[in-house]
C-alpha cells in the first residue's frame, strides 16, 4: 500500500515563526498536494505539484510556499505563521488524479 507520511501529528508555533511541514510518499507518485481542513469549510487546496521542482498555486496560497526538490518529498512552508493559519493540514499524493488521492494522517497546527 502507498504510504504518505507527515512528519508531525501536532505542532504548536508562535506567531511570526517560520514553519515547515514535511510530507513523504513511498510509491513514486508524480502528483502531490497540500490541503488545509477547517470545520464547515472542507478541504481547501493550498498548493500542488505534478513533478519535481514544479509547483502550482491552489485556491488559497497566500501566506504559504512549497518546495519539491525530490519526487517523494513535498514541503509546505508558512513564511510567518499567523493565528488564522491554525488548522489541520493534509498532504496527499496520486498517480494520475483519476486514480484518486492517498492522504497522510494530517498535522494539527496551532499558532499562538
Amino acid at each position: 500500500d502507498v504510504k504518505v507520511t507527515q512528519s508531525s501529528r501536532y505542532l504548536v508555533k508562535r506567531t511570526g515563526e517560520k514553519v515547515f511541514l514535511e510530507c513523504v510518499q513511498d510509491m513514486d507518485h508524480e502528483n502531490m498536494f497540500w490541503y488545509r481542513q477547517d470545520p464547515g469549510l472542507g478541504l481547501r487546496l493550498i498548493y500542488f505539484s505534478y513533478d519535481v521542482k514544479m509547483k502550482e498555486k491552489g485556491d488559497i496560497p497566500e501566506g504559504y510556499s512549497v518546495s519539491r526538490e525530490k519526487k517523494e518529498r513535498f514541503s509546505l512552508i508558512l513564511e510567518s505563521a499567523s493565528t488564522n493559519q491554525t488548522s489541520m493540514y493534509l498532504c496527499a499524493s496520486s498517480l494520475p488524479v483519476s486514480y484518486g488521492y492517498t492522504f497522510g494522517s494530517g498535522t494539527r497546527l496551532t499558532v499562538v
Partner: protein
Amino acid sequence: EDQVTQSPEALRLQEGESSSLNCSYTVSGLRGLFWYRQDPGKGPEFLFTLYSAGEEKEKERLKATLTKKESFLHITAPKPEDSATYLCAAYMNDYKLSFGAGTTVTVRA
C-alpha cells in the same frame, strides 16, 4: 463556478436505520466522483470512484451511485463503526480534486 455541496452537514442514526448522503456538483466536464471516509484526527481514506452516470459501487454496508448532477452514498443497516465524516470530491479537467465540506455521520447503538 465549479462547486461541490454535501448534505446534510450532520446525520444521527440509530443502529440499523438506513439513510443516504447527498453530494451535488455544478462542475463542467466531470471526469470522476470520489467518496472518502475520515475518522476524527485522521486523514481521509478512499472508498469509491464513480466515472459515469448510472454507475454504482458497493462495499460492505455502503453503496455509492452517480447521476449527471449528484451522487448518493447509501448506508444500509449502519453500525456504530460506520460513524465518521464522509467526503465527496469531483475530478474535473485539471490536476486536482475539489472537495465538499463533508457529512458527519453518528450511529448510536
